[in-house]
C-alpha cells in the first residue's frame, strides 16, 4: 500500500518552481556581519520551489516552516504551507488551492509570489548596470533604483563611479500603479528623486513600520509638468504582516521592515538618488560607458562655450523648450546677453557631476554638479541642476536651476 501524491499535483506546484531553476541559493546570501550569513526570504522562497520541483515536498515543507519561524507574519509563506499540506490529499491547481476566502486577498498573494520569484530569478547579472545611473559623484555612496513593474527596489553601490549591485527588495506601490499625476490618484511617481529626510519609527504610527524616508516628489520637472501631490515616502510595514500586497499603498513605496532597516544604512539624506521607473533598462558596461561619454562631452562643451563668452555658442546648448523656474528661453537669453556684455573673462569649474537618466521616453538626463564660477565682476559656487535631453543627435538643456 502506498500513500502517494499524484504526479499531477506535484507538477502543479513545480511548474512555478521550474521558472526558478536558474535562481541559485548562493545569490540570496548577504553577509550582514562577520560569520553570520542570513539568507533572505526570497532566496528561501526560491529554495522551497526548487525543492517542489525536485518532488521533495517534505523538504519543501521543512523549508517553509523554517521561513515561517524566521518571518512569522509572512502570509505568502503560510499560503505555500497550506498548499504543501493539501498536496497530501488533493490535486493542486494553482498557488493557493484554498477554497473559500476572499478571492482578492488570494489573488494578491499569488501576484506577490509571482513577482518575488520572478524578480529573484531575473536578478541583473554582475556586468549589467541600470541605464539611469550614468554617473555617480565620488561623495555619493549608493543609488536606489525602483522597478514598479517588477515590484522591486535595487540598491547600487558607487565603486569608483561605477554602480555595483548591492541588494534588492520586494516593494509595494500605489493601488493604481505608477506614473503619478495628481494629488490623491493612488499612484507612485515615476522620476528621479532623492531622500529628503528620515522619520524614525518612534515618531510614526505602527502603519509605517520601521520608519520612513520621504522623497522630493514633486521635483522640478514634475512641477513644470503640472504634477501635484505630496508626502511620497519609502516606508515600512505594519507589525501584523511581513509584506503588503504588490499594489496597496496610496503612492508610497513600501518595504518589509527588515529591508527598510537595511536600506537606512545605505541612504545619505539629500544625496542618495531614488529613481523610480516602470521598467528598468539594463546596459552592458561598454554601452553604458558610450552613453555617458556622449553626455559628458556635451556638458564640457557647454562649460567651455560659456567660458568663451560667445553668447550664441553658449545659448546653442539650450533647447527651444527650455524653461527655468521663472523664465522661458527668450527671457533667459536676453538676460544672459546683458550679463555677458560686462564680462572680460569667465572661469568655470564643475565638480562632483551626477548624471541620472530620467525614466520614461523623454531621453532626458538629470545632471547635478557643483559649479565654481569666477569672472571679472562676480564669483560664486552653487549646486546646479540641469535637465538635458537629446534632440536629434545633440544634447540640449531643458531646465536649469540652482539648489
Amino acid at each position: 500500500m502506498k500513500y502517494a501524491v499524484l504526479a499531477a499535483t506535484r507538477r502543479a506546484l513545480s511548474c512555478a518552481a521550474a521558472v526558478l531553476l536558474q535562481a541559485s541559493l548562493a545569490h540570496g546570501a548577504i553577509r550582514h556581519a562577520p560569520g553570520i550569513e542570513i539568507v533572505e526570504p526570497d532566496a528561501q522562497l526560491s529554495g522551497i520551489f526548487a525543492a517542489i520541483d525536485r518532488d521533495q515536498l517534505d523538504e519543501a515543507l521543512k523549508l517553509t516552516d523554517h521561513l515561517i519561524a524566521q518571518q512569522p507574519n509572512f502570509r505568502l509563506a503560510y499560503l505555500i504551507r497550506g498548499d504543501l499540506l493539501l498536496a497530501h490529499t488533493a490535486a493542486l491547481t494553482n498557488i493557493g488551492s484554498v477554497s473559500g476566502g476572499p478571492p482578492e486577498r488570494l489573488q494578491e498573494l499569488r501576484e506577490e509570489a509571482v513577482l518575488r520569484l520572478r524578480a529573484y530569478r531575473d536578478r541583473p547579472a554582475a556586468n549589467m548596470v541600470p541605464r539611469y545611473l550614468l554617473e555617480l559623484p565620488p561623495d555619493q555612496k549608493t543609488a536606489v533604483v525602483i522597478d514598479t513593474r517588477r515590484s522591486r527596489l535595487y540598491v547600487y553601490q558607487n565603486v569608483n563611479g561605477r554602480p555595483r549591485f548591492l541588494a534588492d527588495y520586494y516593494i509595494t506601490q500605489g493601488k493604481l500603479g505608477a506614473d503619478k499625476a495628481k494629488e490623491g490618484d493612488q499612484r507612485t511617481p515615476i522620476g528621479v528623486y532623492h531622500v529628503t529626510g528620515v522619520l524614525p519609527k518612534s515618531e510614526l504610527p505602527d502603519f509605517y513600520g520601521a520608519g520612513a524616508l520621504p522623497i522630493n516628489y514633486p521635483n522640478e520637472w514634475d512641477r513644470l509638468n503640472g504634477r501635484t501631490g505630496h508626502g511620497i515616502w519609502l516606508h515600512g510595514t505594519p507589525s501584523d504582516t511581513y509584506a503588503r500586497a504588490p499594489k496597496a499603498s496610496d503612492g508610497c513605496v513600501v518595504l518589509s521592515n527588515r529591508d527598510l532597516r537595511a536600506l537606512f544604512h545605505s541612504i545619505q539624506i539629500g544625496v542618495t538618488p531614488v529613481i523610480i521607473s516602470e521598467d528598468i533598462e539594463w546596459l552592458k558596461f561598454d554601452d553604458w560607458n558610450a552613453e555617458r561619454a556622449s553626455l559628458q562631452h556635451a556638458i564640457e562643451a557647454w562649460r567651455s562655450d560659456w567660458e568663451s563668452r560667445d553668447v550664441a555658442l553658449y545659448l546653442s546648448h539650450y533647447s527651444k523648450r527650455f524653461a527655468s523656474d521663472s523664465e522661458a528661453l527668450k527671457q533667459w537669453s536676453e538676460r544672459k546677453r546683458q550679463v555677458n556684455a560686462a564680462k572680460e573673462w569667465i572661469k568655470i569649474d564643475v565638480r562632483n557631476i551626477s548624471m541620472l537618466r530620467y525614466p520614461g521616453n523623454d531621453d532626458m538626463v538629470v545632471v547635478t554638479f557643483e559649479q565654481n564660477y569666477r569672472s571679472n565682476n562676480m564669483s560664486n559656487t552653487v549646486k546646479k541642476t540641469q535637465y538635458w535631453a537629446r534632440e536629434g543627435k545633440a544634447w540640449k538643456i531643458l531646465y536649469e536651476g540652482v539648489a
Partner: protein
Amino acid sequence: MSSPVMKRALLTCAVSACFSFYALAAHADDAQDVSKMIRAGQNDQAMQRIDAVLAQKPRDAQMRFFKGLILTEEGKSNDAIQVFLHLTEDYPELPEPYNNLAVLYASQGEYEKARAALEMAIRTHPSYATAHENLGDVYAKLASQAYDKALQLDSNNTAAQSKLALIKELISVNTNANKSGASSGSPTTQIGKAPVVAMAKAPPPAAAPAPISAPIPLKTPAAPPPAVMAQAPAPVAPPPAAPAPAPVAAPVAAPAPVPVPVAAPANASPEQQEVVAAVNAWASAWANKDVDAYLAAYAPDFTANGQTHDQWAAERRARIVGKSAISVKIESLEASVEGDHATVHFRQDYKAGALVANSRKTLTLQKVGGKWLIEQERSGA
C-alpha cells in the same frame, strides 16, 4: 561444536520472544469479555476487569488499549493521551495507539502532534487505511489553518473541527493468530487479471483559478485519472450470473484504462460467479458513492472496529459522501465457496483525490435469502 555462551543467547532469545507474545496478547477470554462489555456500554465493569488483568500483567497492550478507549469515551482526554502515549513508547510497532493518540490530539486542536502520530502509525503499518484517512483529514485541517493565516481569516471556526476515527481494536496484535483459517476449504480459483474499475461520476471540474495577471500559471494537472475514467461506462447493478461480457474496449488512440468488471472464468462454478458479481456490485456502489447500495452489500449485523452496525454505517456514509471522487479497482481476485459461505481475496486499488491506497483485502460473505452479503472485511498489506 557450539559454545555454551551462544546456546544461552539463543535460549534467551526464545524466552524473550515468548514473553513479548504474552505481554502483547491478553488472555483471549479477557479481551473478548472486555470488548463485549465496552460494546454494551458497561464501562465500569470493563474497567474493573482491565485493572484486574493489569495488576497481573501491567504491560498488557490489549488491556491498556481498552483502557485508553474507555478513557476517551468518558472524555478524559488527557488520561487517555497518557495511556496511548505510553503504549506507543512500549510498543512502537503497533499503529493503533498512534492513531488514537492522533485522534485525541486533533480533538484538542493539536494538529501538528496529530500529524506526527499518524505518520508514525503509517510508518509502523503502511496499510492502515484508518490512519491514512485520518492523516488526510489532519493535513487538510493544517492546510486550512495555514490558509487562514495567509488570508487573514478568522480561524476560530470550531464547527469545522474535523472528526477523526478512533481504532477500537488492536488488530495488528491478532493478525498472526487469524492468518491460517482463510485459505482452507474449497478450491480457489485464480480469476483473471482484468481489473474491476468502478468509477464515480467525474468530479466537478475544479473551479478555474482566477487568472493571474502575471504569467506563472501553475499547470492544471494533466487530465487527472478520474476525468479520464469517467467517460467509460461504470458497471451498473450486479452483473447477471453468467459472466458479464467485458465491454468491447474500442481501441481509441488514448490508452485510457477501460473499466472491466472482473469476470468469473469459464470454469467458475455458478456460486463463484454469484460471489464475483456481488463483489463487483459492492465495489461499483462504493465508487459511485451510492452509499445505500454499498451498505446493502453488507450483512445487517456487520460490524467493524468495535462499533455497532449503525455507528459503523454512519461513519462509512460520512467517509464516502465526503469524497469528491472515488475509484476502486479490484485485481487478482480469488473466490472460494463452501455452502453458504464464501471467502474472496483480492488486491484493492483505491483512489480518492490524491489518496492512493493499494491493499490486500479479504471479504467473507454469506448467502442470506439468495443474496451474498459481506460478513467480514479485512485488510492486510
